[in-house]
């Protein structure tokens, strides 16, 4: 029963964080919300007896892709401000 409750709580938190990631005005907050979503998803995978998937999700979903999104965001910002767009 407690397993079910924890799963439902995780699912609700994931839905809320997804809403933040989609609808928030600031892109930085949205990116961090997407990373947090992956973190909760990996905990849920662990509860559902899939530790292999949980490891991948925790390392790639909330680690690597968040950082790559930040790099891309920084790159987009710096290119939008300047005139020469030769490298994009």
């Amino acid at each position: 029963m407690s397993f079910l409750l924890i799963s439902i709580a995780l699912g609700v938190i994931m839905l809320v964080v997804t809403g933040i990631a989609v609808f928030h005005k600031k892109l930085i907050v949205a990116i961090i919300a997407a990373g947090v979503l992956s973190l909760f998803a990996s905990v849920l995978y662990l509860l559902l007896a899939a530790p292999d998937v949980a490891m991948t999700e925790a390392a790639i979903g909330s680690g690597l892709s968040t950082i790559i999104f930040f790099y891309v965001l920084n790159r987009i910002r710096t290119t939008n401000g300047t005139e020469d767009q030769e490298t994009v």
Partner: protein
Amino acid sequence: MRKLFIIIILAAFGLMLYPLIQSFSGNDHLSELATYYAQKENIEKVNSVNLVTAIVVTYRGLDTLGEVTILFLTAAIIAFFLKGPSTLRTLRPNSEIFITAARVLVPIMVMFGVYIFMNGHLSPGGGFQGGAVIASAVILMFLAFPDAPFQHKFFGFMESISGLVFVGLAALGALIGSGFLDNTILPLGTFGKLLSAGAIPVIYSFVGLKVGAELSNILNEFKSVQSDK
């Protein structure tokens, strides 16, 4: 009016998906394919404690090869398109706590990644997970020491060698063993020991090295096109 339309569409979707929920019942026994994998004689054929690894590397090894190929293509395309002039960045110096923590954590994280892919046939995890953990250590290094040199040639070399060894071992299985990616080309060993399950730990170690080097190279490409302007 428009909102009403959206609500009607959502309600229609809910109505459409409701029978799925209503007829859902938990699965209390293994499916036919899973029963085949979990049979005792089939487990003894691969001799791997972690059955998921045996499936990923041996039974469904071609899928793993496809995934590795996709990752390689991604890395190649990113390296092809992200060729910016490397501008000097003036960054705020990192705090002492962060740098010290990174000095302590980076070697441990790399070692944990190596542990994950070497023990892929004994505990949960494997090549992709270990490679991703290694790449996380590389991220931490990038963030803590932005000016440290990155030997991208070495990483590219390692990636190519690992990919070649992976495909070579798979082809060796076709030549000596019973088929492509057969794990019985090496002795199966004792069930549960580090050197067991035939070629699975060797193949997965090279997959882990390849994935780690590839993801690190991708991150380095993204880092090298950042600029202040």
